[in-house]
């Protein structure tokens, strides 16, 4: 049983680091001269993951628990500024601390480092009815954590990728209040590191993040959000096959796995005022997974403020 758990635990680490802090930006580019800075603190935890044919009282059907929860906490910094009235640029960098109850195990060693570095350009391309639209291109890399990416307590799968993104959003009146809706859709071309029978490894990903926020007063907004990541291809959940991609050190095993996850969450926003920055509290929970944790819980607190003046 311990061996099974060990294998299961190994699988559970697969992809969770990629789940942190996705958020819909929408199509609204930052004005030139303005500098948006966001800082977020997050905490993530999971203990169950998908496993066909297994049933567990805690994790439910087709899911199994790991003996020790895997947890991540960290801070994410995000910066955005306008280049022209329709073009802006953004970059983000998370600092992550991953740990479990078995720090002596090399697979579960405590890991602290820089997560996925991201940068992107976004351009407004007009409107379609009430929807504002934008398109973007980006790059992201996990090169700073490649040497720990094989761990279960990883802080990312170490892959470098290029993104093409589409953004849509709308604001309007709804009853006696107003709403803001935005959705981001990205295709991520992940630079190949190996070749398999099923294609280049790692497989590409389709990602989306969407949020609908309703202003319940002039100070508070309340809403729902949904984030999804879908790997287009990857290795099946076969321990022997995955082990061919390496182990706890210098491993491509998590990037190679065919894995997807969908999270649903809620968000409370406190709008900024002259004396207060923008504040946001959000909580997400996995609602669907393939070869991934089924019970990922992610809580984030973020603060945002602007510097500079519109040109």
């Amino acid at each position, binding site marked *: 049983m311990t061996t099974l758990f060990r294998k299961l635990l190994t699988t559970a680490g697969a992809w969770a680091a990629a789940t942190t802090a996705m958020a819909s930006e*929408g199509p609204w580019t*930052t004005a030139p001269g303005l500098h948006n800075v966001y800082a977020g603190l997050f905490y993530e935890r999971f203990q169950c993951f998908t496993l066909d044919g297994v049933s567990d009282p805690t994790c439910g059907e087709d899911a199994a628990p790991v003996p020790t929860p895997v947890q991540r906490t960290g801070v994410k910094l995000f910066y955005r500024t*306008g280049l022209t*009235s329709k073009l802006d640029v953004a970059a983000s960098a998370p600092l992550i601390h991953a740990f479990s109850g078995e720090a002596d195990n090399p697979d579960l060693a405590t890991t602290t480092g820089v997560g996925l570095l991201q940068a992107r350009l976004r351009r407004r391309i007009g409107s379609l009815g009430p929807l504002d639209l934008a398109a973007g291109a980006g790059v992201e890399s996990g090169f700073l954590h490649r040497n720990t990416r094989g761990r279960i307590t990883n802080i990312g799968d170490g892959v470098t990728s290029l993104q093409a993104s589409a953004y849509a959003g709308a604001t309007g*009146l709804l009853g*006696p209040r107003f709403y803001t809706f935005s959705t981001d859709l990205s295709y991520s071309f992940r630079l190949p590191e190996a070749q398999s029978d099923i294609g280049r490894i790692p497989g590409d990903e389709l990602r989306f993040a969407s949020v609908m926020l309703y202003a319940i007063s*002039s100070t508070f907004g309340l809403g729902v959000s949904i984030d999804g990541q879908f790997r287009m291809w990857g290795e099946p959940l076969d321990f022997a096959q995955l082990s061919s991609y390496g182990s706890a050190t210098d491993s491509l095993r998590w990037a190679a796995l065919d894995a997807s996850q969908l999270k649903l969450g809620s968000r409370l926003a406190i709008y900024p005022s002259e004396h207060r920055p923008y504040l946001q509290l959000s909580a997400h929970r996995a609602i669907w997974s393939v070869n991934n944790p089924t019970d990922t819980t992610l809580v984030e607190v973020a603060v945002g403020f602007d510097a500079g003046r*519109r040109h």
Partner: protein
Amino acid sequence: MHGTLLLVIQLAALTTEPIVVASPSAQVQSLSRKEVRHIFTLRRKSWSNGIPVRIVLPPVGSSEDKWLSEELLGLPPDVYRRFLAEQAYRRGGKMPLRADKAGVIKTVKAAGSSAGVVSVVPSPAEPPLVPVKIQSK
């Protein structure tokens, strides 16, 4: 006698509904409620003759501000102000001008051109602004 007359005038002022006004260059005599909502929520950017819409909001806390928010848009005034701030932020624009107690015309003159102005003022209209009839549909 003077006191009674003053009271009557004050009551008349209290019961007179504010009106939507526009500068003559906007060439608009009437608007539907939907059009008014689109204008004051920044969705409509130009008049039918191509002149940009320039919104001048009534002073904060005035009866015109309250009428615009509650009667025309169906929003509490503070929520409307938050909505405008969000729109301006997200669309990279600026907040609409807000009239001071000197009036809309003095405010827009101080800011430059008065072409394409639309606002809400106490009735009767402040010349040269002209009243815009709001159609019920």
